[in-house]
């Protein structure tokens, strides 16, 4: 099951040129772009690992594509995303976030039903990937 998270996730994977153009848009808006990776695809997992320092003062997005490719060399079998942080007053949050790399095989999510208080049921989802310990989740 293909992970649908962030921008452009219903489109085909972005090419390096398209990543560069998107990142350039963020940079031109004054947002700091950075690269993050993880092997826990749960949508509520907000703690992705930073690949490099956020790029506050790189005027050209080629630097970001360079880092994305460096990250792919190391973590090619995991999810990698590009985020753009807007530090301006009132925003101070992520303005863009899109996945630029995903594992070859995405096992998807399992629906977990928990029976509580008599007949009530609580639902939650769990990725099949996280049943393996960290580092062994995607071959």
């Amino acid at each position, binding site marked *: 099951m293909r992970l649908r998270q962030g921008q452009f996730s219903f489109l085909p994977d972005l090419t390096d040129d398209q990543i560069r153009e998107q990142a350039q848009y963020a940079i031109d808006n004054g947002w700091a772009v950075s690269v993050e990776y993880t092997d826990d695809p749960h949508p509520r997992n907000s703690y992705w690992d930073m690949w490099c320092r956020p790029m506050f003062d*790189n*005027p050209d997005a*080629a630097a970001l594509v*360079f880092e994305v490719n460096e990250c792919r060399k190391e973590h090619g079998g995991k999810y990698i995303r590009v985020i753009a942080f807007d530090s301006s007053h009132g925003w101070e949050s992520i303005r863009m976030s899109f996945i630029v790399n995903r594992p070859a095989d995405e096992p998807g999510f399992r629906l977990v039903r928990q029976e509580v208080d008599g007949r009530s049921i609580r639902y939650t989802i769990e990725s099949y990937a996280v049943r393996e310990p960290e580092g062994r989740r995607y071959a």
Partner: protein
Amino acid sequence: MSTATTAESEHEPSPPPQEVDLAAVFEDSGVKDVLHEIDETMIGLGPVKQRIREMVALLLVDRARRDMGLATETPTLHMSFTGNPGTGKTTVALKMADLLHRLGYVRKGHLVTVTRDDLVGQYIGHTAPKTKEVLKKAMGGVLFIDEAYYLYRPENERDYGQEAIEILLQVMENNRDDLVVILAGYGDRMDRFFSSNPGFRSRIAHHIDFPDYDDDELVRISQIMLDQQNYALDDEAREVLLRYVALRRQQPHFANARSIRNALDRARLRQANRLFLRNQGPVSREDLSTIRAEDLLASRVFTMGMPDADAAP
């Protein structure tokens, strides 16, 4: 990524044009203005200007060839600027970044000036991220490495400079579309640097040598510098400045235009002091903007024969 290729193939390239008007491209790209500006604002440097014009011609033709599908490779644009201090290497590098931007060879056209300290770290594992950080900052523009020969220290085999050189070479080769590297430094030391790092020599396409300015050119440069700050030399001061340049040249630490700029800064200081001490009544506009012979004659270059370039003002 498998889907990437399909996305690209949907993008049909338009058929290549059959002819191109080089003169029109030359006009439209705005390169002409920059070349004109270089000719106007930079004194002397005949051979350098000639080389720049040749390069621009080459790059224009190359771009036309690529538009027509005759060439596909990005040409190697890395350069080395050799010459004595104060001969305008940094200034030309700025203009070069502008030219390359207008010709479409770099996307942003900014210039990042660094020296050894910005590239080489102080402990193990410090150099690679530091160098990469600088390279990333320079992407889309021009990286100007001043006194590049300091990167290589043969006397210390554990010097981290070697690591910076390796990363630099790798990026210079693999990211040729993204940045242009200009190495600058004194002629003889750069020659030694290149002979001990053959990787650099083969990756650098254009070697430009900056000649020293002669006395007359330096005086003309000083006039431009003063004009920009709304100062002027009187006739006597001009004569003195010519003598000053000739004397200063023979002394150590002579740095061409930079020495002259420092000398002028000190002359301005003395002029201000003179106006202040001998202030009799109101000072006119002309007084405030004229540098007289006495402001220059007070220099130690005339009296002690000592260089005052690095001394206190």
